[in-house]
């Protein structure tokens, strides 16, 4: 899972989205110690201050917990993780429906295509 800076939106936003995905998919396990800012910044090829800003965002959403003794860890709170996971899923679904809408597909037809795809 590599970091990608794709568009013109603020870089910290793009990073926090990608880190979120890593967290909810278990790339960083719940309760595990989170990598240091500089390490992550080097991995993504971005400025450490930018990476710091994206981590602050994840902290405010409750995905990361900062603890004086152990540093930054991934939350173990299932409810928070599930809420973020379903928010991401809803966003993906919305984007999919929008793209299909542009092609002239109704939601019902989309649903049919998905079922068809599953059967194949």
């Amino acid at each position, binding site marked *: 899972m590599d970091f990608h*800076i794709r*568009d*013109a*939106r*603020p*870089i*910290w*936003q793009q990073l926090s989205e990608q880190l979120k995905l890593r967290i909810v998919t278990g790339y960083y396990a719940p309760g595990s110690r989170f990598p240091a800012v*500089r390490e992550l*910044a*080097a991995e*993504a*090829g*971005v*400025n*450490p*201050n*930018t990476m710091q*800003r994206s981590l602050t965002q994840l902290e405010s959403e409750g995905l990361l917990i900062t603890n004086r003794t152990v540093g930054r860890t991934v939350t173990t709170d299932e409810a928070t993780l599930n809420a973020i996971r379903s928010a991401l899923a809803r966003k993906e679904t919305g984007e999919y429906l929008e793209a299909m809408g542009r092609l002239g597909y109704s939601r019902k037809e989309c649903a049919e295509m998905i079922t068809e795809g599953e059967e194949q």
Partner: protein
Amino acid sequence: MNLVECHGLSKTYGSIRALDNAELALESGRIIGLAGPNGSGKTTLIKILNGLICPDSGSAAIDGHEPDKYTRSIVSYLPDRDYFADWMKIRDMMDIFSDFYADFDRAKAEELCKTLELNPDMRIKTLSKGTREKMQLMLVMSRKARLYVLDEPLAGVDPAAREFILRTILTNYNENGSVFISTHLISDVEQVLDEVVFLKEGRVVLHRNADDLREETGRSIDECFRDMFRYDAWKEN
């Protein structure tokens, strides 16, 4: 106190105004991009910061000092052209830097040579343009400086090497220091920048946090740059 403070800097070459009342303040611990079209005054500003030329009027200070022996000891400078005696070997340049600069970290230089695939026994004469730039960068980033001033560090290298060089800058600058980096290749550097400074006709026309500018305009820094300098939007009146 700001690490760099410039007030009302002006410099003329004959009838050409290279700098026209430029104002600039840079804090510690930041990576700042300096962008502007050809002839906008980037190199003139950088040369003043390094004490290579004197402004006609205005002041420039680094850590509270006008460019002098002290500031040279805390500023690590990568000029826009190389200045090496080409019969020397890379190792000879490392010796010179060790002698000149108390903050030169020889072990780091050796390590960077490995990362950048530079053989210290190579003669400078035999190096390609891109390899010379890598050598310069190795020397400059091996100092534990308060301010790194890099004038077009990416100009002569291919896109793959650019990314490599940017990573080298990111992972090697002194955390308490700042990096001031001039470039035309904004799209290549934009993800490493904290702040961006646009220079136009010798004036600082914009100085912003890079991500705030992206958020506000919905555009990349590169697009902002192209817009500003295409339409002359910042021309007074």
